[in-house]
């Protein structure tokens, strides 16, 4: 890990926290299981207006599962979750759909539809949820492509783009409906440091320009320290700490220290759980759309 002082100095020069007072996402005592295995063990956290919240943790810590819950893609075992002031267990189908329209997501793989051009991918939410005419949708798609510096690429197929470009195009699609909350799953994974850094700048710019809250799941420390207003650290399904970059860097917790310095933890997994994982009995899979 880099020197904490240098990280803090660098943040002071370019990070402008503008966090609002209200929570856009509130999670209380969230518990979830995959089969018999408990993945999240009573997670409580919130994401504030105009905040970049980074969720960090080692492999298998539950950060991707938590992100899927925040996007309302998973069924929880217990706990409550409020998105944009709506308790997702209490609202009806139409209200839930209205909430969903205010969320954007850029998946790790980009998840662009391979049968559509980049432009069609970006226009899809507009086509499905608005009554705009085709020309207006095209203009909006071009505007969003300009935001992510992909102007002129609207007629290419996703297979014709590089990894970094696919992620940018995914960002463009995620922000086309001007969401209140943007979710990013491992935005810099698999990218070279220069492209990864440019994506970090893009996330900061989008937050500043559009005033959205952004939730980023990453295990890239440099990226997390660069963009985060607050960091949630997950460990084995539990929250280890929530705090600003400065608070995380100053933490005396051994487990936080181990994560930041990439020190492998001792293997304390239950032998039965390990065996189940090997034979795949804890992976339920789903055959639903």
């Amino acid at each position, binding site marked *: 890990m880099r020197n904490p002082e240098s990280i803090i100095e660098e943040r002071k020069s370019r990070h402008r926290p503008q966090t609002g007072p209200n929570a856009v996402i509130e999670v209380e005592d969230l518990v979830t299981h995959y089969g018999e295995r408990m993945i999240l063990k009573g997670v409580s956290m919130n994401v504030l207006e105009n905040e970049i919240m980074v969720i960090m943790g080692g492999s298998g810590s539950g950060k991707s599962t938590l992100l*899927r819950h925040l*996007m*309302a*893609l998973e069924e929880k075992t217990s706990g409550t979750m409020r998105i944009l002031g709506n308790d997702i267990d209490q609202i009806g*189908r*139409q209200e839930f*759909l209205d909430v*969903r*329209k205010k*969320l*954007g*997501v850029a*998946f*790790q*793989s980009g*998840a*662009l*539809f*391979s049968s559509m051009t980049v432009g069609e991918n970006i226009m*899809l*939410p507009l086509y*499905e*949820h608005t009554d705009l005419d085709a020309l207006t949708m095209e203009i909006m798609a071009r505007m969003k492509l300009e935001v992510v510096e992909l102007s002129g690429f609207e007629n290419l197929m996703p297979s014709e783009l590089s990894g970094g470009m696919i992620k940018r195009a995914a960002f463009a*699609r995620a922000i086309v*409906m001007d969401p209140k909350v943007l*979710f990013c799953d491992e935005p810099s994974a698999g990218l070279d440091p220069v492209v990864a850094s440019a994506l970090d700048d893009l996330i900061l710019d989008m937050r500043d320009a559009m005033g959205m809250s952004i939730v980023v799941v990453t295990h890239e420390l440099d990226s997390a320290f660069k963009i985060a207003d607050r960091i949630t650290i997950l460990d084995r399904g539990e929250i280890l700490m929530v705090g600003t970059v400065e608070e995380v860097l100053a933490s005396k917790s051994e487990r936080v220290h181990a994560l930041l310095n990439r020190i492998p933890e001792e293997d304390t997994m239950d032998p039965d759980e390990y065996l189940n994982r090997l034979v795949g009995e804890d*992976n339920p*899979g*789903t*055959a*639903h*759309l």
Partner: protein
Amino acid sequence: MADHKVSAVEKIEGVGKTAVGFVEAVGNGGILVAESVYWLMFGVRERQPVRIGAVVQQMMEIGINAIPIILMLTGTIGVMLAIQGIHTLRIFGAESRVTIGIAFSVVREFAPLITGILVAGRSGSALAARIGTMKINQEIDALKVMGINPTRFLVVPALVAMLIMVPALTLLGNFMGLFAAGLYVNADLGISLAAYAHDTIDILSLDDLGHGLGKSCIFAVLIAVIGVVNGAGVQGGAEGVGKATTRSVVQAISAIIVTDMLFAFVATR
């Protein structure tokens, strides 16, 4: 001894798991059909209508692009039936009555069956592969987060297109099979095409046509549902997609043949 007991328990457990998996797959298929009907009927009210463009695109892929192969194979089947029919009836000196056998066999049996099997191999597998790939690439999740129902967006257009195009292709297969058989009968027995057509129209009733087309509608639903259920159940990346695709073709063809037999049994009682 203990090993034998463990082995027996494992076998029973395996049978149980397979049975549960089968029931689950059938249940998922039923839910899928119910959901599809819901979106077809109430999509507009839910402000998520089924897009005509998507249905037309699927119709092109499932139906229009399959026309050459359907024509070729149903034509071949028609000639094959004529050859076998004439050969068999010649034993009794009744080869001139071959038209009856050809007409019933093509319209009631072979055109719907061959069309169903071809569409299962061509489009059912493509549907499973497409949905499986979308699932592992998180495209299905992306749709959900965008507030787009995947069943309405992906399944309903394919199902509707199948329901329109499989009977349409069957109808085309009927004409091609009968026409090709007529050409052979004309060449072999010297019966004119006009006389052959007259005999065929005389023999066939609307019930026969309905029998074949009714079956093809059931095949269409089976192909679509089996393709989607297998695609949605994909696990394990590209290899999983390959397995799901193969499984969907095998299951769809098996389901078509079994349904064909059951339909024939029920319809002829």
